[in-house]
């Protein structure tokens, strides 16, 4: 009897249909799309560019919304526009150039990605850094010999980015930041008067649907009494573009001016902001065969 059962068991365990074991090609995959784009409201993120990919961002902020409908909620007043192009030289390193209309600032920056969060959590977060130098190219010739020279016009920024996707919905980035102005003149469109500015940026994303997220930016200053930057908005992915619309307390669009530029009171001194991100694959491989 026992034997019969055993024989039966043996035959039953005989697989009737051969099946392959389902195995992932890469056991330790990178966590992807921690943020929708390399920019998140005004801050750069850990989101890397592919090799030979070109990221184009056009960013705007407008006047304060407290003028109401009369000023079309700030759209009539003093837009600041920044164009930026960032090119991926490798999966880890990219260089960018940006031009913001406030003080006609040209900014050169690089991003380097040390490591990325993995899905198996062996690497629990992504770490990247950014460094940049900017030149204010406004015309100050009316100052004659007091006009700032190139060094006086130069400012620097550095930022570390630590980011983690906590769940499919929630991603957070922590960004210790510094900005340094060689000569922070009152003439420039900044509120601060010191050379060095330190701050800690928080960027948050809450994914609502597959293609849209609520976004948050908060940048408390660490070594000065300027108001802190606050931004809230929404990110929308649409056919290769990432649209970012937000309310923010500062008109600044580059890191130096974000830290030194001063902020309005959150609420009535909010400004509308709008970014369009697009990534072009310039080195698209011709397919083999």
């Amino acid at each position, binding site marked *: 009897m*026992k*034997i019969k059962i*055993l*024989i039966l068991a*043996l035959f039953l365990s*005989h*697989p*009737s*249909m*051969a*099946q*392959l*074991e*389902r*195995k*992932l*090609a*890469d056991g330790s*995959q990178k966590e*992807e*799309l921690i943020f929708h784009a390399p920019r998140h409201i005004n801050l750069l993120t850990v989101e890397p*560019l*592919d090799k030979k*990919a070109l990221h184009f961002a056009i960013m705007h902020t407008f006047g304060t919304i407290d003028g109401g409908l009369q000023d079309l909620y700030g759209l009539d007043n003093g837009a600041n526009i920044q164009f930026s192009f960032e090119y991926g030289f490798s999966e880890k390193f990219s260089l960018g150039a940006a031009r913001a209309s406030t003080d006609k600032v040209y900014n050169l920056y690089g991003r380097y990605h040390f490591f990325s969060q993995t*899905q198996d959590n062996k690497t629990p977060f992504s770490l990247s850094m950014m460094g940049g130098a900017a030149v204010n190219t406004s015309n100050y010739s009316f100052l004659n010999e007091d006009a700032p020279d190139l060094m006086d016009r130069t400012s620097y920024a550095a930022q570390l980015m630590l980011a983690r996707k906590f769940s*499919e919905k929630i991603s957070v980035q922590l960004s210790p930041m510094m900005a340094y102005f060689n000569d922070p003149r009152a003439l420039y469109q900044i509120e601060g008067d010191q050379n060095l500015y330190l701050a800690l940026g928080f960027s948050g994303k809450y994914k609502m649907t*597959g*293609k849209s997220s609520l976004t948050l930016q908060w940048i408390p200053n660490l070594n000065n009494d300027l108001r802190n930057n606050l931004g809230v908005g929404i990110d929308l*992915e*649409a*056919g*290769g573009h990432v649209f970012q619309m937000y309310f923010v307390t500062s008109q600044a669009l580059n890191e130096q001016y974000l830290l030194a530029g001063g902020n309005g009171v959150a609420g009535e001194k909010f400004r509308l902001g709008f970014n369009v991100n697009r*990534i072009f*694959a310039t080195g*698209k*491989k011709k*397919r083999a065969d």
Partner: protein
Amino acid sequence: MMKNLIVFFFFAFLVTFSFEMKGQTYNTDKGRAEFLSKAALNEFTGVSDDLNGLLDFEKNSFDFFIDLNTLKTGIGLRDRHMRENYLETKKYPFAEFTGKINEQVKLEKGQSKLLNATGTFKIHGKEKNMVVPGKITWISDSEIQLEATFKILLSDYNIAIPSVIFYELSEEQTISIKANLKKKTVNTK
């Protein structure tokens, strides 16, 4: 006595098992799978060379699967969006096609043969039965090539195309596979 019998059956089982697989089973883990999306404004393909496949001519069964994370369209961001928003590879990492070959296949040297396979195609957590025509070609005594092309509708698998990119992503996807399968002499299962 009983012990001996058990041992005997155990070995008999092992022997019959490996014997029936021997020479009848072909497999690969480097097949090519490709999809073509042909929408009004945009046409693109995604390719992977990590197609895993098993053909068993003894049982006339087959089993193919692919890790969807290995599909590349040539644009990294598009790949990431595809994985995160459409295929949802974290939840559903594989596309699978498993079933039976409809006819008995005898392949002579240098020959090609058309055949039909009936099976279950599974992607994005949804299954659908389908019949897929394919072609197998003799490459060598220990290698055959399999080619097949079929179409799927994304809506059959609950993959929604948002209206904003309706013109860029096609509802109908043409899938082609091409794989060289080698005769398996050692039974691994």
